């Protein structure tokens, strides 16, 4: 392993389904000599149906979809990181985008910018990932790379600039002209492995010169040197142009566009050259961690091997070699035998085997320095965990994990699936802290919980695909909760004297909603217990028992058996008996007191309200607002951005089931939305009645 960070590239390849991501990845691995044969992506029937990439990989027995694949190209080390196929906002997507420094956005020269490209692009934007665009399939009939470049500008708002122009198109696509060097590139040999560089064809020269001028014009915005050279009409070197484009690319102010046809083995090598020349190296990108000794303030990590270790486990994989933990080191050197601390658990671990994945094989390595990606064997952790040197205390991820807002019952179809399902759940819950699973004590059903309908769907789908666990799912259930709205007193005596030792305890005080001020003062504001007893009417040793008794009531509220939150219990009086009082007796008294006070305190049901952001072509914005309005949504605003409008709203989760389907059908599939939990809010009376009915019905059903 070299240790020259400037020559490291951590990149992702993101693409619309069917734009040729699998083929491109495979060609890259072939030209970088990681695999030795090229297979046909077309189905065996020869009709041209594209096979599903997952099946394809299985058939070939290569793991091009492994979390991070390493290859080398002209002295640069490139890690290709798998970007998840689904576009829903989940912690997993966030993590894989975090470890990327740059990306290749693959577009189809026929299909152009499609709605999924828009989604993928937005993720890049959100995480500020600099990217190159590669217009693939230039050999297809109907190929029109120029149209795609203009779509990149109009639909995605990229300042796209072509670095190449095609030599011929569709059936006659033979190569590309590099607009920087003004040379023509042809790809010879059985698999296009021999790059032949010649003078650009004379008939295309004048067009190429015009395009080159356009390119230099745009690049000069990022380089004074280049501008001066242009103004003084001096010779413009290739380096000047590349340096300027690189600067613009890193700032995400320019998107260089390359062309080719991965399937016909054309244009892949120049793309790799562009990755080396134009995409950032780890030290070009600012990464931050949160300082846990300093109230979680962000600290900038320096890609310096001398500094203490900070590394992020971004993906766990159950591969053919056992459990692998993929890790990116941001600071310091993670060496074999060194001791690291898991920031989440505080546990110390010794680094055992370190490896690097190469398509279908792996290489043992001694250390992973800052900026590099590798994998650890035999480390017990969850994905998203931060590993540190013992002397520092930071974390790459916020410690706050939101509580799930939706649940779903799942059941395996057969015995075999049951085992696989358990395996899958074990893995997923480790990977994603917002995804939980448990067995309901009353119904014996396995329940999965998460942050939204899509979130759960993704995991159910992954269970099927990755673990071949066939499961059936119930209807999604919203995580309602209960709280009180006013203060109410209680004074409850628990007394039992029917043979044997008696039980006695009296607890008096009041319950009240937690106010904003209380909530600010307490970190965990779901339940506050305050003891205001003076003069020992309840002896100190029984106070914890009282608190425990109250806490026991929180899991299932007396109103509709939803969890109780936002409640403050104050006890200020009570009574005990020298012989008959015990912990048990006071726990029972507290439970009774809670029920008594709670029902008087006007309990209400609360439901999760989601923040919904819909991005839609402007012509559909009225329809989208109508849809949200029908769903009890409050529309906060509409932002006109020219061709697109962003509608922001708050809507109850319970009303958002199936929204994606409805949204698609009323906007011709052109709108997309993100949804995340925002806050809890009291359910309107009419809805509360409906929920009560449903709860009663379910109870009857399970009894």
């Amino acid at each position: 392993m070299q240790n020259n960070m400037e020559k490291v590239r951590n990149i992702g390849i993101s693409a619309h389904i069917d734009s040729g991501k699998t083929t491109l990845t495979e060609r890259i691995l072939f030209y970088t000599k990681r695999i030795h044969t090229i297979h046909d992506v077309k189905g065996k029937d020869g009709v041209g149906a594209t096979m599903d990439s997952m099946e394809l990989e299985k058939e070939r027995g290569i793991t091009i979809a492994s979390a991070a694949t390493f290859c080398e190209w002209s002295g640069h080390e490139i890690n290709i990181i798998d970007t998840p196929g689904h576009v829903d906002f989940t912690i997993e997507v966030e993590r894989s985008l975090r470890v990327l420094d740059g990306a290749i956005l693959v577009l189809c020269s026929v299909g152009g910018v499609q709605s999924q490209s828009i989604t993928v692009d937005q993720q890049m934007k959100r995480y500020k990932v600099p990217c190159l665009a590669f217009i693939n399939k230039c050999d297809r009939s109907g190929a029109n790379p120029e149209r795609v470049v203009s779509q990149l500008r109009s639909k995605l708002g990229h300042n796209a600039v072509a670095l190449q122009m095609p030599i011929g198109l569709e059936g006659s696509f033979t190569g590309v002209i590099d607009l920087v060097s003004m040379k023509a590139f042809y790809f010879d040999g059985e698999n296009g492995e021999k790059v032949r560089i010649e003078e650009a064809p004379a008939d295309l020269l004048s067009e190429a010169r015009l395009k080159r001028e356009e390119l230099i014009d745009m690049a000069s915005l990022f380089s004074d040197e280049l501008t001066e050279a242009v103004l003084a009409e001096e010779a413009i070197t290739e380096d000047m142009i590349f340096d300027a484009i690189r600067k613009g690319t890193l700032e995400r102010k320019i998107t260089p566009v390359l062309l080719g046809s991965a399937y016909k083995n054309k244009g892949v090598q120049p793309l790799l050259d562009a990755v080396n020349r134009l995409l950032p190296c780890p030290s070009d990108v600012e990464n931050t961690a949160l300082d846990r000794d300093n109230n979680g303030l962000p600290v900038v990590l320096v890609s310096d091997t001398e500094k203490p270790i900070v590394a992020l486990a971004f993906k766990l994989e159950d591969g053919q070699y056992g459990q692998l933990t993929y890790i990116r080191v941001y600071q310091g050197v993670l060496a074999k035998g060194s001791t690291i601390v898991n920031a989440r658990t505080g546990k110390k671990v010794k680094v055992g085997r370190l490896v690097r994945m190469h398509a279908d094989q792996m290489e043992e390595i001694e250390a992973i320095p800052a900026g590099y990606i590798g994998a650890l064997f035999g480390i017990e952790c969850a994905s998203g965990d931060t590993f540190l040197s013992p002397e520092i205390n930071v974390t790459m991820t916020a410690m706050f994990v939101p509580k799930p807002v939706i649940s779903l019952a799942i059941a395996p179809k057969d015995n075999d699936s049951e085992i696989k399902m358990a395996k899958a759940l074990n893995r997923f819950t480790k990977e994603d802290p917002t995804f939980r699973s448990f067995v309901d004590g009353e119904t014996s059903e396995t329940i999965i919980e998460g942050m939204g309908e899509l979130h759960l769907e993704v995991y159910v789908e992954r269970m099927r695909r990755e673990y071949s666990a066939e499961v059936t799912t119930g209807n999604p259930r919203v995580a309602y909760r209960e709280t009180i709205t006013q203060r109410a007193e209680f004074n409850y005596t628990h007394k039992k004297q029917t043979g044997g030792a008696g039980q006695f305890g009296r607890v008096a005080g009041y319950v009240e909603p937690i106010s904003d001020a209380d909530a600010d003062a307490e970190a965990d504001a779901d339940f506050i217990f305050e003891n205001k007893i003076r003069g020992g009417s309840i002896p100190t040793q029984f106070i914890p028992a009282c608190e425990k008794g109250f806490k026991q009531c929180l899991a299932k509220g007396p109103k509709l058996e939803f969890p109780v939150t936002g409640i403050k219990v104050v006890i200020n009086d009570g009574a005990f008996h020298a012989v008959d009082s015990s912990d048990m007796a006071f726990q029972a008294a507290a439970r009774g007191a809670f029920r008594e006070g709670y029902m008087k305190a006007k309990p209400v049901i609360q439901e999760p309200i989601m923040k919904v952001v819909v991005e839609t072509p402007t012509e559909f914005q009225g329809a989208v607002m109508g849809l949200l309005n029908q769903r009890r949504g409050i529309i906060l605003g509409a932002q006109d951005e020219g061709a697109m409008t962003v509608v922001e709203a708050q809507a109850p989760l319970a009303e958002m089931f199936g929204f994606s389907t409805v949204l698609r059908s009323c906007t011709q599939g052109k709108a997309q939305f993100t949804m995340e939990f925002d806050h809890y809010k009291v359910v309107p009376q009419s809805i509360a009645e409906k929920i009560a009915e449903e709860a009663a019905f379910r109870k009857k059903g399970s009894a």
Partner: protein
Amino acid sequence: MLNKKLITLNSFKVMGYESDDIIPEGGLGAVSAHAGVGKTAFMVQLAINAMLRGKKVLHVSLHDPVNKVNLWYRELFSNIAGQAGKGNINETWEAILPNRFIMTFKVEGFNLPKLKERLTDLIVQNIFSPEVIIIDGIKFDESERDTIINLKAMAKKHDQRLWFTVHAHHHEDSAAHEMPVALLPFADLFDVVFQLHPEGGEIYIKPLKGKISDSQRLFLDPATMLIKGN
């Protein structure tokens, strides 16, 4: 409860007007100031006051994205509520939130037909039917006179009250109690015009048109941006 307290605290009656609405239905009001003095803060307080009284407010911003406008509301609301003391602020906020709709445009993308189209969308689908409309960031030059006349007609037709912010430029400073230069060609269309005028450490809210009573001078507190009497 908190709601009522907040209305009293955030009252515009002190300005000498009979109601907090200041302008009549179908009327036009404007607040003029240099950049950064507090036009938006003033408008947002006007809006919060209306929202608390159950009036539907449409806030059209030509500069800021929805999030930023929303932040203004949150900030000023919690400042007003902070004055009122204890009470469940979040609950009150959630209760009045449905009374507000933010619409943002890029300045160059804004025109009257577009606004009307959007409004019709909202009204016809019964999503939102504004009673007060705030337009923050429109450029006042003579070519826009038709737009303003049309907006006034629209306000009349739907019984809406329309408020505008007017950006006054330093080089156009006019004498005291005089209309800002930018507003001169339109002055006849407006019922009420205020000017925010920095005076020492305070920002004086100077009435230029409408009821001009100097008995109660009003200021914007530069720390909280809240309106207060002297």
